[in-house]
């Protein structure tokens, strides 16, 4: 048997050193299928122990490459052996696919959030915020006032909270008929209050109280 001890994990799975996770996953599934005991193309080529050895080797390769820490360690090992160069790896970050539904926000989103929070933590409006937090009834215009004094636009709130601008306007103008059903409205209000650095636990019931919607 050639090389099975000598091949790199990348060669074994047939992927480039800069392959992304999904690519590695796909390659692993394919290679596993090829060396499966039922596989038409290899069942008669290998003896039992040989197959076991290869399968184990593939498992190790996969488990190393999908773990970022182990992979980094392995890359270091390959580089010290002169079998991998920095340029091979460099493209790694560019090439790896960006997940569609990322739990962590992108860098751009984080920076914007930071900017808005800075505006709202301005000392001049802290008193207004505290006042709103303690009220039992808050009108939309009061929310708008806070937003205006902080210098935050509706578009920024929309980008941060993903609430549509029409709904945000309806909230600020107390247009009860244009607001969504209470169960959704509560969610929107919570996000909006958080965007404005308010305490959602008191502000949401206070606003609903003001519009006389449901029971807090």
């Amino acid at each position, binding site marked *: 048997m050639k090389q099975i001890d000598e091949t790199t994990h990348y060669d074994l799975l047939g992927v480039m050193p800069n392959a992304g996770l999904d690519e590695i996953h796909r390659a692993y599934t394919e290679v596993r299928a090829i060396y499966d005991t039922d596989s*038409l193309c*290899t069942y008669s*080529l290998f003896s039992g122990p040989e197959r076991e050895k290869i399968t184990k080797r593939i498992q190790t390769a996969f488990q190393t490459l999908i773990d970022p820490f182990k992979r980094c360690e392995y890359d270091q090992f390959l580089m010290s052996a002169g079998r991998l160069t920095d340029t091979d790896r460099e493209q790694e970050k560019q090439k790896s696919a960006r997940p569609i539904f990322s739990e962590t926000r992108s860098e751009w989103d984080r920076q914007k959030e930071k900017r808005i929070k800075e505006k709202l933590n301005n000392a001049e409006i802290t008193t207004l915020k505290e006042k709103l937090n303690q009220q039992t009834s808050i009108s939309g215009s009061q929310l708008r006032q806070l937003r205006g004094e902080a210098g935050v636009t509706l578009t920024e709130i929309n980008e941060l909270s993903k609430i549509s601008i029409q709904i945000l306007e309806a909230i600020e103008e107390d247009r009860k008929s244009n607001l969504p059903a209470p169960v959704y409205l509560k969610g929107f209000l919570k996000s909006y209050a958080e965007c404005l650095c308010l305490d959602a636990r008191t502000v949401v019931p206070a606003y609903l109280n003001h519009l006389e919607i449901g029971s807090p």
Partner: protein
Amino acid sequence: VGGGKGGIGKSLITANIATLLAQKGRQVILVDLDLGGSNLHTFIGLDNPGPGLADFLDKRVAKLQSVAVPTEVDGLTLVNSANCRVEAANLHTAQKEKIIRSVQSLTYDYVFMDLGAGTNFNLLDFFLASDQGLFVLTSEPTAIENAFTFIKAVYFRMIKRTLKQKKFNRMTRHMDLNANTLDQSFRILKAIRKQQPETADALQEKLEAFQFSFIVNKVHKHDDPYLGEKIEKVCNHHFYSRFKFLGNIRYDEKIHDAVLRRRLFVTRYAYTPVANDINQIVSCLEALNRREPLEKNNETD
């Protein structure tokens, strides 16, 4: 075209590939070395082929070239073995070497040696005498199994023949060379490397120099079309020799019809999907030979 199993289309594919190459203006010769089971002449529609390999072996003629008979295709000649004795399959070593020497001295663009089924020494040595070993398999497990048996047989024959040479004799005398798993071939090489690294390198080089190419024949509609690619990948991973998958040939009733009529498939059904498959394989084969210009272009069949 070797390939352990019988009835997988070795001779048929040989005849048709050779015809297409001849039609492209190449000088092609077919040598029927399926001794004791020869029927290549029937595939290309020669009922009474006249002189053959038997005359050469029995020293009635001096040169292999003089028993080559022309066929209905321009540029394609055939050395048939229809008139060999019934026990022709059991060639003597001297006769075998005579054939190999004369085949290697033929001056044609392409020389195809059509081999029989099985893995006997004569057959393996003919296969190894070629510049490129072509083998055929089908997508049935039996054929794949025999194809691997065949590859391993060729591979171990290569190892053994190299190690049987005098300079290695002392070292390998105590070694168990009767291997049948790939693991063992690796172990042998490792053992040699420990004693004489340069010898191991030489052996490895020799193994690496040999080019296998293969065709998957009789591919049915519902078969895995990527079987060939997978086998190519696996073999290149686990053998030192190089493997090249040339292409699939799909299953077609018309092939049976062409054989029944004793006519060449690619001339009788030139514009069918199967003929197209064979055509693509021929281009693949030509590309493979262009890439590595060889002194002689012997193909084993």
